[in-house]
């Protein structure tokens, strides 16, 4: 079992049966499909390619593999998926990845270092994420924890978490609650109810607080009732293996 397996299983468990989930490609898609095959068979997967209620038998490599369209309840165009389905608040959970995330759960997937006009690393950009982060009922972020990814301030705000802190989402008029969990290969972070600052609330079995601190680019706060995530079950791991991409 790899640290990624623990992260994926923990992320899958964060989804409730019957949720409508807007799924990004990569780790979010793996976790959402795992959830649908284990505890949440009624999970509705919505992909930005316009596939609503997709039920892929194998894990798609892209958000638009043919399998997603042929197994979907409905396939709609891209303007429709964003305007009719995401924007009015029909989606319970948005599932996002990140290249950088900061202490207030703002996400950068645009540029790293050197400024926008002369970036050191040009990342893919926004995709569907800014509006997913704004309009889904809540957001779950899945990202490997390292000092490069977990930074005090993101180099570019591609998608808003809690902005500069409490009250910012309301001020900006963002309808959804924002990120409620950040699930990593080390454990789980959640926003502090008072300060909105991402706080370590659980560790995967065998990971220490010091390891989590060392992998975080800000002074990481730790919840007083720090938990331990349940180890992945054999059934979960078997389902994960079966999901290997085509």
């Amino acid at each position, binding site marked *: 079992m790899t640290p990624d397996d623990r992260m994926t299983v923990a992320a899958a468990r964060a989804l409730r049966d019957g949720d409508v989930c807007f799924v990004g*490609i*990569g780790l979010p898609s793996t976790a959402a499909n795992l959830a649908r095959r284990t505890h949440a068979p009624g999970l509705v997967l919505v992909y*930005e*390619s*316009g*596939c609503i209620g997709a039920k892929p038998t194998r894990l*798609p*490599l*892209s*958000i*638009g*593999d*043919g399998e*997603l*369209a*042929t197994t979907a309840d409905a*396939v709609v*165009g*891209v*303007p429709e998926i*964003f*305007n009719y389905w*995401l*924007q009015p608040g029909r989606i319970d959970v948005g599932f996002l990845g990140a290249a950088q995330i900061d202490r207030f759960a703002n996400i950068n997937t*645009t540029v790293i270092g050197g400024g*926008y006009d002369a*970036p*050191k*690393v*040009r*990342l*893919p*950009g*926004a*995709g*569907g*994420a*800014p*509006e997913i982060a*704004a*309009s889904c009922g809540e957001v779950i972020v899945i990202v490997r924890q390292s000092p490069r990814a977990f930074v005090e301030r993101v180099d*570019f*705000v*591609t*998608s*808003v978490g809690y*902005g500069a802190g409490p009250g*910012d989402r309301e001020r*900006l*008029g*963002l*309808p959804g609650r924002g990120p409620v969990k950040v699930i990593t290969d080390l454990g789980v972070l959640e926003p502090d109810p008072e300060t909105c600052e991402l706080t370590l609330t659980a560790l995967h079995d065998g990971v220490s607080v010091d390891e989590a601190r060392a992998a975080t680019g800000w002074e990481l706060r730790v919840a007083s009732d720090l938990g331990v995530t349940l180890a992945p079950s054999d059934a979960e791991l078997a389902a994960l293996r079966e999901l290997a*991409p*085509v």
Partner: protein
Amino acid sequence: MPNGHSQYVHYPLMAEISPLQESVAELVRDGDVVAMEGFTALIPFAAAHEIIRQGRRDLTLVRMTPDLVFDQLIGAGCARRLVFSWGGNPGVGSLHRFRDAVERSWPHPLELEEHSHAGMANRYAAGASGLPFAVMRGYVGTDLPERTPTIRPIACPFTGEALTAVAALRPDVAIVHAQRADRDGNVQLWGITGVQKEAVLAADRSLVTVEEVVDELDPRPGAIVLPGWTVTRVSVVPEGARPSYALGYYDRDNDAYRAWDAISRDREAFARWVEEVRA
């Protein structure tokens, strides 16, 4: 109206069916704004390769997901500017020709106009609707509006609510791939239909490459039909969307997407790939 659009264009009654080389030569000129759509599926690769062969320059390339197809056009030196919303190799990683252009100005600098998917989709819809802009909820609190002049705040005229306006896209030419056309150039496409309809209707001119021409377009679930009088040219290019896919014809070649990483990563390997396309 901007971009030579007229409310009362007299379209010819049917699209002209012509070989790909002739269609591209006729429709795509140096300096044009060229939208090439197909959201993961039905990506018009063959048409892009023809643009590389014809050596078009200074293009403004417009596409939600640049994908391999724009990585190729950018690396081959066809582009001056890119309008986009997500520039990665889906499920694989970076588009290295795109990154090389942005990070190291190779083969020359690339200007960016960057949006979110929702923004791009709305911009096409506004273009197709003959409106100057679209209204949406989006971008608020992000750093994108500061970098992208085609995103502006706007107040709802009825309630005063703060919303976001995005400027319409009005490409000179839109290029898409479809499963098939009939002999009058009516085009039918299905599966993931993306923003192809909006792109074609927003553009001054359009080219649709198709897998085949058939006598009659029998109905398919979820299919879109673009009447022949909305399309300028149709070219028959079997497998013209490879390595993406055409539902009902062939699957996505995921191995080719993975293999592109090594070609794209290395300027010499990429130069060899371009030579093969030109040969």
